[in-house]
């Protein structure tokens, strides 16, 4: 019954999405007396979101109960799984992850309907109509080609299990967080479409849209940071970013959302960059959808690809053509009627933000081209893949220029500034960067140009990012200023971690007998031996390693796990985190003569990467609270 109830909830939600679209469309077309129609869109959107949540919860219940008569459960779960992975298994597959996508889409629409009070009613109705249209397409996709509630008869005795590599606490939180970011951007997209429909692009529109963009961006940042750390410790390859198509699929919306975040501030504060902001709002969610499409269609092979199915691919491609093509066409038709905003001088806060936007767009373009190039090449009969050498070389230098702009931007005045005074304000950051550069050249082992520049600029950016707080009463500094400071500082911290990782990592691949030892970086690692370990639904071998450094010892237990259902061997890395970095150990294969392969890395300051990412998200959250608070006070008085 639960599966049928879930399916019914989906159908109901889909019909409400249709109603939401119809009410908005009819209400906006009617010349008068349509206010009731427009007002009715709100509750419809809320109930639609609630029904989607019900469907998702019912799917989780099915997984929790291990109801093997449901095809999705039988193919992706197993009764012996720990409960957390049964729950997470609900979205560790194609159908379930699409349901999660639609659920968050519905929730985002419901949240707009419930909480948005700033937007002009007609624009709000148009926004909710657009949100309904997007949801409708994805409901259709679920119901017609990816039904998560499909029954299986006869029911198998037990399930086929979840991909063991996905059996990790990270999986429980990574997709929902990332999806909240992806799909949260749908709100910005719908706002842009709504504003284009009612020709209402201005400061009020920007102020209304900003918190939603900030919220989605915070989730996206957290999701990418968590995903990067998950790949780092779970895959056992020691890397934290692989330029995998799916990683790119999450990076592209983030780049667009970051640009949008900054341009929407120009629009809200100075009423400039109107058309550009609308364009970015369309692009940001388009990148989310393109990312989903590339993954779900199986066009790009990736560890994240669940489905290889041209029919599903064609369905999503049709949705993309409708939504992205439609929004871009609407943009082209209506942008002429968007009045020009306020102008500004080249050297000004606006100018800095435009530079930020252009550089982010160029990086976005590079990542997009690099990700799609294999598909284009394949169309001409050439098989190739685009990897880190391309992305690092093409995007790296531009990212460093962006860091320079980031350092200067917050120290610029709105409207007009003097170049000489800006340089004066940047004295300390420049001095810090030059000092770091000189110290690295003089004292450190020779390192590559990009890491050297990256580390120096990170130091400069760190100093520059706290500069807006100088000579200010910190208690009276607005929260969104704190947010900017923390986010920019976080990026400096993260950049420093990336540069340290690529400059100073020591790697060692050895084959050791029990009792032997080796050195990696400042550590002496000795291999005490192996012992068997038993898990909930796996068995494995565990190496006992003792790592010594300056008289202090750490114990590490890297494992090789064998899962019976489906039969898979995974390696579980063991990581010792200390203040100045991480010792990363992986147990490899036996050589048949009593020796075991061990892969060891000493990664100085690598943790800064994710600490920085978390700070960036925290900064976004502070800004969000800062932007929401004064509004609430207004509402009370």
């Amino acid at each position, binding site marked *: 019954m639960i599966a049928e109830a879930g399916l019914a909830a989906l159908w109901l939600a889909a019909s409400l999405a249709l109603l939401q679209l119809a009410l908005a469309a009819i209400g906006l077309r009617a010349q008068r007396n349509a206010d009731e129609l427009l007002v009715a869109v709100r509750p419809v959107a809320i109930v639609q979101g609630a029904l989607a949540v019900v469907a998702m919860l019912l799917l989780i219940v099915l997984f929790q109960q291990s109801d093997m008569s449901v095809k999705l459960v039988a193919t992706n779960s197993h009764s012996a799984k720990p409960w957390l992975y049964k729950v997470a298994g609900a979205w560790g597959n194609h159908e379930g992850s699409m349901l999660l996508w639609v659920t968050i889409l519905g929730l985002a629409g419901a949240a707009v309907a419930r909480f948005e009070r700033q937007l002009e009613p007609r624009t709000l109705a148009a926004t909710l109509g657009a949100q309904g249209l997007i949801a409708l397409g994805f409901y259709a996709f679920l119901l017609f080609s990816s039904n998560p509630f499909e029954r299986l008869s006869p029911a198998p005795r037990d399930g086929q299990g979840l991909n063991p590599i996905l059996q990790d606490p990270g999986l429980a939180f990574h997709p929902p967080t990332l999806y909240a970011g992806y799909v949260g951007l749908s709100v910005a997209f719908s706002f842009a479409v709504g504003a284009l429909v009612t020709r209402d692009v201005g400061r009020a529109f920007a102020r209304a849209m900003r918190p939603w963009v900030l919220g989605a961006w915070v989730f996206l940042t957290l999701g990418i940071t968590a995903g990067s750390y998950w790949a780092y410790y779970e895959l056992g390859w020691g890397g934290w970013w692989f330029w995998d198509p799916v990683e790119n699929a999450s990076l592209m919306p983030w780049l667009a959302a970051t640009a949008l975040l900054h341009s929407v501030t120009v629009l809200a504060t100075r009423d400039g960059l109107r058309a550009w902001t609308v364009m970015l709002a369309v692009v940001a969610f388009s990148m989310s959808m393109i990312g989903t499409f590339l993954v779900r269609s199986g066009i790009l092979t990736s560890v994240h690809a669940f489905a290889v199915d041209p029919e599903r691919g064609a369905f999503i491609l049709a949705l993309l053509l409708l939504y992205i093509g439609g929004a871009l066409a609407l943009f082209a038709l209506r942008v002429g009627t968007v009045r020009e905003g306020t102008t500004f001088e080249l050297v000004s806060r606006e100018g800095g933000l435009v530079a930020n936007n252009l550089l982010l767009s160029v990086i976005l373009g590079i990542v997009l081209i690099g990700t799609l190039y294999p598909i284009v090449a394949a*169309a001409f009969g050439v098989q190739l893949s685009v990897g880190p050498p391309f992305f690092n070389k093409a995007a790296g230098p531009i990212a460093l220029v962006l860091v320079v702009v980031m350092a200067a931007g917050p120290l610029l005045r709105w409207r007009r500034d003097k170049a000489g005074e800006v340089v004066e304000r940047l004295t300390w950051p420049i001095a810090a960067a030059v000092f770091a550069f000189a110290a690295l050249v003089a004292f450190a082992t020779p390192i590559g140009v990009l890491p050297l520049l990256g580390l120096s600029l990170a130091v400069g950016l760190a100093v520059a990012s706290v500069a807006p707080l100088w000579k200010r009463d910190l208690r009276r500094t607005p929260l969104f200023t704190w947010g900017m400071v923390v986010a920019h500082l976080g990026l400096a911290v993260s950049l420093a971690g990336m540069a340290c990782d690529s400059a100073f990592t020591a790697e060692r691949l050895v084959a050791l007998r029990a009792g032997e030892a080796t050195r990696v970086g400042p550590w002496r690692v000795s291999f005490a031996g192996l012992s068997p370990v038993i898990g909930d639904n796996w068995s494995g071998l565990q190496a006992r390693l003792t790592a010594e450094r300056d008289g202090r010892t750490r114990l590490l237990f890297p494992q090789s796990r064998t899962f019976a259902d489906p039969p898979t061997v995974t390696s579980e890395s063991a990581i010792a985190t200390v203040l100045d970095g991480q010792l990363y150990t992986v147990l490899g294969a036996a050589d048949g003569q009593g020796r075991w392969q061990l892969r060891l890395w000493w990664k100085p300051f690598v943790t800064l990467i994710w600490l920085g990412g978390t700070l960036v998200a925290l900064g976004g959250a502070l800004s969000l609270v800062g932007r929401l608070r004064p509004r609430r006070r207004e509402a009370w008085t």
Partner: protein
Amino acid sequence: MDVKRPLVWLPLAGFLLVAIVVAVALYAPADRTVRSAMIGQPLPAFNLRPIVSTKPGVASDAMKGHGPRLLNIFASWCVPCIAEAPQLMRLRQAGVRIDAVAIRDTGPAVAGFLRRNGDPYAAIGDDPSSAVQLSLGSSGVPETFLIDGQGIVRRQWVGDIRADQVDEVLAAVRDVQ
């Protein structure tokens, strides 16, 4: 912002272009041809002892200066090789010379395999440690290489040759002649 009229259609045009490429990629049949690095290359030098007393061994030098032939990588313990045997017999009957490399095998086992499944081979070399197999860029059994009269590798088929592939193999042999 002073946006030129035609320029505002540029994002849409760019997106449609991407969509067309992606649509083509979506429906293009997946390319499953094995692109062997060996194709167009001369055989690596090897000289394998015979594994059964009734047939000679296989040496790379001996393949030069004669007509084209197939080099079949097989093993008596390999089940797909049993499935492939009738196709190899048909190729033999069509006049194709087939040499073989037996992987990690023994003489009595190979003799038994040929008795049960037919014997299409002119020569069989003994590769007890897979050394020659690896030098050919082959990673499993069965695999079949087409060698031309100059000892150059022309084609590689990974997995057993199916009944519907016999004509394709024959055509490839004739092409090389």
